[in-house]
């Protein structure tokens, strides 16, 4: 029988693997586009050798396209780096707004595959919380995955962060399908990941009528 630690380790590894696969897929797509554009440049050169002049305007467009893809890859790598460093310390002070932005960006590819968009609303000012960053990222990923299964016909999830005095609330809404999801599926987040939630000293509730998943976290897990 699995211990809670085994389950958490398995879940963390699964999460890390999924995120890494998604990021590598994104980078691979960028490389594939650069490859095609570089190939097209070569084609133009070969055509010129056969007497067809190179159109400088086309070259300029191609160079612009390659630069765009390099900027795209740069953002992907920066996010990957941020994510990788989330395991540096078991507990640290993080800006929840930044962390939510990162998780929404990381989840975007899988959301787009499922035809879902994610709208993130965070408070104007930074919301600092002291927590286990990696566990929180893992838990948010699980919540987003569940939310994607429960999203209503508009296929748009709203994620709202609210700043309290000693706690923060993260609300996943527009989930009218929550009532149709089996309890087993919901319990994968609410029960199987109990250890994760306990480590975060958080609380999760689901409101099937309003179509919401509500995650409440302390601002400081050391208190």
């Amino acid at each position, binding site marked *: 029988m699995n211990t809670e630690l085994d389950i958490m380790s398995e879940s963390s590894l699964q999460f890390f693997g999924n995120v890494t*696969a998604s990021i*590598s*897929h994104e980078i*691979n*797509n960028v*490389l*594939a*586009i*650069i*490859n*095609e*554009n570089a*190939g*097209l440049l070569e*084609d133009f050169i070969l*055509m010129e050798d056969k007497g067809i002049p190179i159109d400088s305007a086309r070259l300029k467009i191609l160079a612009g*396209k390659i630069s765009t*893809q390099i900027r795209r890859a740069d953002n992907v790598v920066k996010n990957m780096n941020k994510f990788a460093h989330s395991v540096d310390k078991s507990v640290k002070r993080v800006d929840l707004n930044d962390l939510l932005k990162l998780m929404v960006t990381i989840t975007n590819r899988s959301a*787009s*595959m*499922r*035809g879902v968009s994610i709208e993130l609303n965070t408070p104007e000012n930074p919301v600092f919380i002291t927590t286990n960053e990696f566990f929180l990222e893992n838990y948010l990923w699980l919540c987003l995955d569940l939310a994607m299964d429960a999203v209503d016909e508009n296929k748009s999830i709203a994620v709202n962060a609210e700043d309290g005095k000693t706690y923060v609330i993260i609300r996943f809404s527009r989930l009218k399908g929550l009532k149709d999801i089996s309890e087993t599926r919901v319990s994968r987040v609410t029960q199987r990941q109990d250890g994760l939630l306990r480590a975060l000293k958080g609380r999760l509730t689901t409101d099937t009528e309003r179509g919401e998943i509500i995650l409440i976290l302390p601002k400081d897990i050391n208190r």
Partner: protein
Amino acid sequence: MRILLVDDEAELVSTLAERLEIRGIKADWVVSGEEALARAGKENYDLAVLDIKIPRINGIRLKKKLQEKNPNMKFIFMTGHASENDFKVCSIEAGPEFYLVKPVDINTIIKKINKALKISGKKL
């Protein structure tokens, strides 16, 4: 000879189509499964090059739906993932030789297109 390219990366699929056209191969391109099905409803394609991971309808499901419209259509799968499972599924669906991992070499893809068409007694 009618070829359809399907990939959610418009930049990739449009450039690939342009490079094929330079080599005398005319190919239409779309960025979603829904668009692919709509196009296949109007045109009689001989071959489709499909990305496995496309939004909403994945490449394997799309292949089945396209085949309902045209049972003789041939398929080549492309993927950014080189996972064992993807390879297994694509091998079953299209044959192991019709599975390409991105970035794709233009000459390799043309060889695969030729091979797939040859099986159905057609050529470029």
